[in-house]
């Protein structure tokens, strides 16, 4: 990773946007924070001369002076939840807000690093940063240096959690600010659950949400992660989500992108044991000058694993999108079956999309396929619908709705699926309004 600017005042500026907590917490935490701080000062922002960040230019981060956000407690009322019933953990600028939250019933447990002790603290020590390493890129380093607290959601073994658990991650501030949510999710063996992460923040204000999630899934479990990214209109959102799958795990994620001005989703999944199946889905709906970069990495570390990726984008206005799908098949990971698909509909002549597969295969008995299609709405389909009496806009909405529908249909949890469908309908209207 290369340093973006020789004048590195922004490095200090962004470091100063975290809480002044370097002397707090156990020794191991202080050491990790300090290492991350040093790593950040060395690496800085990922530059777009780095192949993995080629399509996403973060340089304006270096040109903006950031502060810490507002006092968390006072502004919890602004958070926009998803409307889902069930447990809801509200994080304001990375800090848990107990009053606004509904804790999940036992045996699901929620813990916070700032208050943890004993065995709980040991869990934090073991899991925090085991996947998300500061050396991966500067944004991980910056998050690790600056995170104000860490939330741990823990599901013991043998538990089927029926209700979805929502994490409402809300950013609040009145001048350019940065927040660093940090979340750990640990699911024991033979359990199942759906977790929804909902990101929101103020419109028309430059702010940075630099979020890191590390998920650990035990053998035989079934876990679904749904990320609803609807940050403010001028927000920069960088999410780095990691998942470690033990053995015979079924894991699925969906990244729904509606908000933000510049958005980067890093999704890294390690299929660490045999018999795992990972499905990564994405649906981005952008307009204006929005840019959404979905960057996925599937690490097939063991044999007999399957992965599926379906990323779809609807791009209006001058918006742009990137999908990078990296698949690493390690030596010995025989019978790997990896399928990757990226599809984009360009709703205006100024919108653009880049898709690039990156396959690294070190085993010989594997099946890896990838495909991508980018283009405008199908004229033949449009004409067919109009020839039956549907107005131009109605015909377009029917086609864009159908395009989005099959991604949403993949969501396992029915209430979450319904919530997403409602959100998408509203969003499709936004695109219709803004597409020219």
């Amino acid at each position, binding site marked *: 990773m290369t340093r973006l600017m020789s004048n590195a005042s922004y490095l200090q500026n962004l470091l100063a946007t975290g809480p002044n907590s370097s002397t707090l917490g156990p020794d191991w935490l202080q050491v990790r924070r300090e290492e991350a701080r040093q790593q950040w000062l060395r690496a800085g922002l990922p530059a777009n001369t780095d192949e993995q960040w080629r399509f996403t230019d973060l340089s304006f981060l270096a040109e903006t002076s950031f502060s810490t956000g507002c006092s968390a407690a006072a502004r919890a009322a602004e958070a926009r939840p998803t409307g889902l019933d069930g447990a809801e953990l509200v994080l304001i600028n990375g800090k848990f807000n107990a009053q606004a939250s509904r804790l999940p019933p036992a045996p699901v447990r929620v813990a916070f690093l700032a208050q943890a002790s004993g065995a709980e603290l040991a869990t934090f020590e073991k899991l925090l940063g085991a996947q998300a390493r500061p050396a991966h890129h500067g944004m991980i380093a910056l998050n690790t240096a600056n995170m104000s607290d860490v939330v741990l959601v823990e599901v013991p073994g043998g538990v089927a959690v029926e209700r979805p658990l929502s994490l409402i991650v809300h950013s609040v501030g009145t001048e350019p600010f940065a927040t660093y949510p940090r979340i750990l999710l640990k699911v024991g063996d033979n359990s199942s659950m759906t977790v929804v992460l909902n990101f929101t923040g103020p419109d028309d204000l430059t702010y940075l949400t630099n979020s890191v999630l590390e998920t650990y899934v035990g053998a035989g479990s079934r876990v679904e992660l749904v990320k609803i990214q609807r940050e403010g209109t001028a927000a920069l959102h960088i999410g780095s989500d990691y998942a470690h799958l033990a053995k015979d795990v079924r894991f699925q994620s969906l990244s729904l992108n509606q908000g933000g001005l510049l958005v980067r989703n890093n999704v890294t999944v390690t299929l660490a044991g045999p018999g795992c199946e990972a499905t990564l889905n994405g649906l981005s709906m952008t307009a204006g000058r929005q840019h959404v970069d979905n960057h996925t990495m599937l690490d097939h570390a063991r044999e007999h694993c399957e992965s599926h990726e379906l990323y779809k984008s609807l791009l209006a206005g001058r918006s742009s999108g990137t999908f990078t799908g990296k698949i690493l098949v390690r030596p010995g990971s025989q019978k790997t079956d990896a399928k990757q698909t990226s599809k984009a509909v360009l709703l205006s002549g100024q919108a653009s999309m880049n898709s690039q597969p990156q396959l690294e295969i070190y085993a010989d008995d594997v099946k890896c396929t990838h495909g991508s299609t980018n283009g405008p709405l199908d004229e033949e389909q449009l004409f067919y619908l109009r020839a*039956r*009496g549907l107005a131009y806009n109605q015909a377009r909405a029917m086609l864009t709705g*159908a395009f989005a529908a099959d991604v949403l249909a993949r969501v396992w949890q029915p209430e979450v699926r319904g919530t997403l469908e409602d959100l998408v309908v509203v969003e499709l209207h936004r695109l219709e309004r803004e597409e020219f």
Partner: protein
Amino acid sequence: MSILEIKDLRAGIAGREILRGVNLTIAPGEVHAIMGPNGSGKSTLAQVLAGRDTYAVTGGEVRLNGRDLLDLSPEERACEGLFLAFQYPVEIPGVSTSYFLKAALNAVRKYHGEPELDAMDFLKLMKQKMKLLDMDASFLSRAVNEGFSGGEKKRNEILQMAVLDPKLAILDETDSGLDIDALRIVAGGVNSLRGSDRGILVVTHYQRLLNYIVPDYVHVLRDGQIIKSGDKNLALELEARGYGWLEEPTAVH
């Protein structure tokens, strides 16, 4: 008043004129067939009438029930009662047939200031119309034309026609890709929709379809003009002799 009146219609694509002065009038209750060799402009005529903007209309006039058609968008033409049964019905993944047809029917009803049909009334109507075409109820939940056989696609077109109840139906090569059983079913569906206030224009390359949908008039289109008109016997003559013998009168001319 005639349902369709085409006067000296000229249209083309990329500067090449394909329709070079077409004249045709269809009165209520009449079934007209347009036949012609490949490249004569049959499908272009069908598409131009439906409002396909890949073709540029360069001259002439078209009236549907007395109303200027060429100024209308494709959806307005459909709402005014024009229906094109496509030669190649397009597949629309992700949109169920019932959702699509309900939206189409309600768009037409709304255009005429009629109340939209609710789900129950719509389903009742669909069941009745699907019986006409020997269609299974599972059609409704399948995505529009997706994975349909050739015969299923054409039946779906006629189903749509039956539901939308147009004033003028244009059938573009509806017989292509149909085996004899499917052809009978499709033709039976069309025949049941013949009526005193509806006009039907059958565009076809082969006479075969006209054994089942017997036309009142047959026209031969060649090089973008109607060069001969007659009754159903003209179609039989074309079947027996091909299109070659028609060249002589044009040569004399």
